[in-house]
């Protein structure tokens, strides 16, 4: 790796490269209020804050995606006012956003050089393209990747690295990363972080947004904490611990957040899964979920966790296996989510945008969607008054922040969107199931959570953990899939591990440790390599 290529003009490490002063942004209300930060080359500078604290807005201003309402920026003493993203890139400032811009049908090399493909005559100079691409890929540690591979086949982590490689190839001096590890499994994330460290040592200034505090503590040199649009502090990472960060972000004493775990597990089995199979990702999985139990599902990305939940829920019909719910004697399989919902099963999906919420529709319609029959009055008319009251009560119970329940869900922050996604099922379980006369006393209520805190800030996350507990206390069974093992260890009574679509083992709360769970995640990977 060549230092000269990464930072075009030679510079000393630790030198201030980008100075932001008095930055203010108003969208109706003030979302960024007089923020001044100094970003230095050769440093990873983490921006922390709850959702809506202004981190992303600050980054967008720096990257030229949105103009500031007031304030100045200086790029090594010269005034810097980017007109748009391309202009910012010309200044050496690059942003890699959460939503990746890799085009799946093009090759890796074409994605890297999309805007400046080397020409030969009227065609593309493939040879030169691939040569250049190999150099660019090596810079982020993707030496082994063939530039002619279609980008669609790559994992999220690799796509992220490709975007970073493209940014570096355009001579980035400041690299902004908005939650780069949110969608990555632990292994991929730590690889990405390793590369970022190397780039930092090569003199790049990295601005890094993440909700994973352990990660920030492990890798950042400086942190700036934002709260409600204001800068709380900029500090060297020094000897800060997680509680300090949480305190600064929330303004609340950390002690209140780290709550003790209480087990609400009961004797009765709520969900019995036997031999559930949906090839290729779910192979012969069997386990039990008790009433009041919070069972975490750990596994690597691609190990079949989401597919397991979808097969239980009937979103993808299973090939074979059986489920039994509650006291029901006859085992079954769901072939449509409708059947699962009728039996009291709820699923909160990972990707709220694609299959969780109606983004352009108001909060009200999203929360009430599942069981509208309650509100139907004369002539089939939905009594919107009663509907609104029910939704408002539910929203208030979850401390949902929105202008009104008529606000489109797409305008809410990630944490609040997740609350809406959960709220609709709470209403369903409270009223819809209980109205079934054939239900036994302990009405089965099973919640399948897929990455419930993805992209959600610390405060909202705590709220969701509290919700898990209250659901468990009420006798519901929770199946929680998460890539964040700490999250599972904090919230669950037991953790089941799956590896390559197969059930490995189950760890009970008193008898688990991080290392053995991680080892179990790789269980079938190792056996396969040993066999091969």
């Amino acid at each position, binding site marked *: 790796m060549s230092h000269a290529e990464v930072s075009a003009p030679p510079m000393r490490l630790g030198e201030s490269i980008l100075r932001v002063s008095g930055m203010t942004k108003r969208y109706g209300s003030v979302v960024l209020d007089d923020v001044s930060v100094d970003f230095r080359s050769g440093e990873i500078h983490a921006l922390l804050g709850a959702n809506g604290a202004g981190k992303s807005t600050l980054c967008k201003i720096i990257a030229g995606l949105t103009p500031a309402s007031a304030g100045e920026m200086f790029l090594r003493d010269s005034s810097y006012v980017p007109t748009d993203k391309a202009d910012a890139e010309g200044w050496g400032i690059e942003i890699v956003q959460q939503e990746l811009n890799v085009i799946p049908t093009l090759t890796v090399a074409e994605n890297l050089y999309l805007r400046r493909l080397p020409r030969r005559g009227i065609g593309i100079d493939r040879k030169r393209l691939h040569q250049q691409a190999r150099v660019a890929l090596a810079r982020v540690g993707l030496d082994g990747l063939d530039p002619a591979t279609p980008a669609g086949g790559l994992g999220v982590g690799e796509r992220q690295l490709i975007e970073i490689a493209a940014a570096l190839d355009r001579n980035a001096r400041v690299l902004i990363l908005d939650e780069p590890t949110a969608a990555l499994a632990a292994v991929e994330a730590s690889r990405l972080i390793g590369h970022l460290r190397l780039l930092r040592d090569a003199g790049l200034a990295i601005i890094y947004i993440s909700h994973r505090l352990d990660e920030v503590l492990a890798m950042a040199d400086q942190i700036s904490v934002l709260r409600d649009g204001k800068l709380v502090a900029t500090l060297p990472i020094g000897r800060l611990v997680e509680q300090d960060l949480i305190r600064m972000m929330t303004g609340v004493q950390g002690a209140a957040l780290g709550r003790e775990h209480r087990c609400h597990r009961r004797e009765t089995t709520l969900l019995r899964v036997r031999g559930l199979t949906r090839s290729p990702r779910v192979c012969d999985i069997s386990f039990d979920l008790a009433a009041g139990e919070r069972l975490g599902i750990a596994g690597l990305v691609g190990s079949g966790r989401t597919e397991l939940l979808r097969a239980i829920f009937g979103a993808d019909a299973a090939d074979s296996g059986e489920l039994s719910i509650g006291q029901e004697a006859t085992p079954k399989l769901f072939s449509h989510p409708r059947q699962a*919902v009728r039996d009291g099963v709820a699923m909160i999906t990972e990707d709220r945008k694609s299959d969780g919420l109606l983004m352009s529709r108001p909060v009200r319609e999203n929360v009430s969607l599942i069981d509208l029959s309650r509100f139907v009055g004369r002539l089939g*008319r939905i009594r919107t008054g009663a509907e609104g009251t029910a939704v408002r009560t539910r929203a208030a119970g979850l401390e949902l922040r929105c202008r009104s329940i008529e606000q489109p869900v797409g305008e809410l922050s990630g944490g609040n969107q997740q609350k809406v996604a959960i709220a609709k099922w709470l209403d369903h379980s409270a009223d819809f199931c209980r109205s079934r006369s054939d239900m036994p006393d302990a009405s089965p209520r099973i919640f399948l959570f897929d990455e419930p805190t993805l992209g959600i800030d610390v405060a909202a996350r705590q709220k969701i953990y509290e919700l898990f507990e209250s659901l468990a206390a009420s006798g519901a069974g929770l199946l929680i899939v998460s890539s964040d093992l700490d999250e599972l260890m904090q919230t669950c009574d037991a953790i089941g591990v799956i590896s390559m679509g197969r059930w490995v083992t189950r760890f009970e709360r008193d008898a688990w440790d991080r290392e053995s769970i991680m080892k179990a995640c790789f269980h079938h990977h190792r056996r396969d390599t040993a066999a091969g």
Partner: protein
Amino acid sequence: MRGAQETESSIVGPGRAVARWPIANVYRYFGLLAVLGLMCLLFGLASDRFLTTRTFTSIANQIPELTLVAVGMTLVLVIGGIDLSVGSLLALGSAILGVLMVDRGWPFWIAAPIAISVCGAAGLVNGVVSIGAGIPSFIVTLGMLEIARGLALLLTGSRIVYIGSSIEFLGAPPGGIPLSPAFVISIGVVLAAQYVLVQTVMGRYCVAIGTNREAVRMAGIDPRPTAIKVFLISGLLCGLGGIVQASRLSSADPNAAVGLELSAIAAAVIGGTSLMGGRGNVISTWLGVWIIAVLQTGLAQCGFSDPSKRLITGLVIVAAVLMDAWRSRRWN
């Protein structure tokens, strides 16, 4: 509960009352009404015959069939589909009516329900094939466009069937009142469809399906029956439209209503219905029908030739689609 209400408002905010029947948030129609008013003003200045009662009653009596078809189209567009077969189905409906009444001598009250049912069945086929087999409705209804037109031509032997004055009672204004029963029926259909779309569970599902069909499925609701019903409704309204048209022309023309699907889509889009699904309003569509009709009539009265009429209508449609794109950009 009083106390709880108050703590909520700090977090949730005061939920303003939602859509009210029959004409929700009247201000949402101001834009279309303003366009309509402006057009009338311009045509009124250009031609002294335009701003007369006669112009408007004759428009009102001409638009019922487009209105009926556009209502069905709006519902189909809301669920994220499209129905290209409406023009042909309308011709099929009128052909069946004509053949049954003239060749078989059946009375209107038997022939009309049969014609409507056959068109409904064709709509059902559209729905079952496209929703059931997961084929884009664009392709399925394109096939139905040809099938229905072929059937209409076969039934009538490719000739116009003259039915006579026995069915004019629907399309012609009765003595004393300048508006036809067909116009009144079309208004009733507009209001009923708007009620269904805005006020009922079915309407809510339609909007939800058009917004995000997978999210609806994952909410434990089967989107297919609702979507199929919408295609059925579109078919039924085409049949009704065919009868209205036959009544207005006193005959069944198997070559009638060619390209009507495009006018219906145009009316819906001018009214703000999204081609991407998830957004639509039947009353706005009706105003869209008026805009198209006033434009046609006004341009004709001002002496524009047929080609220039088409050109200007095209420009108006493109402008409406641009506005639609601008509105939906917020979500993409």
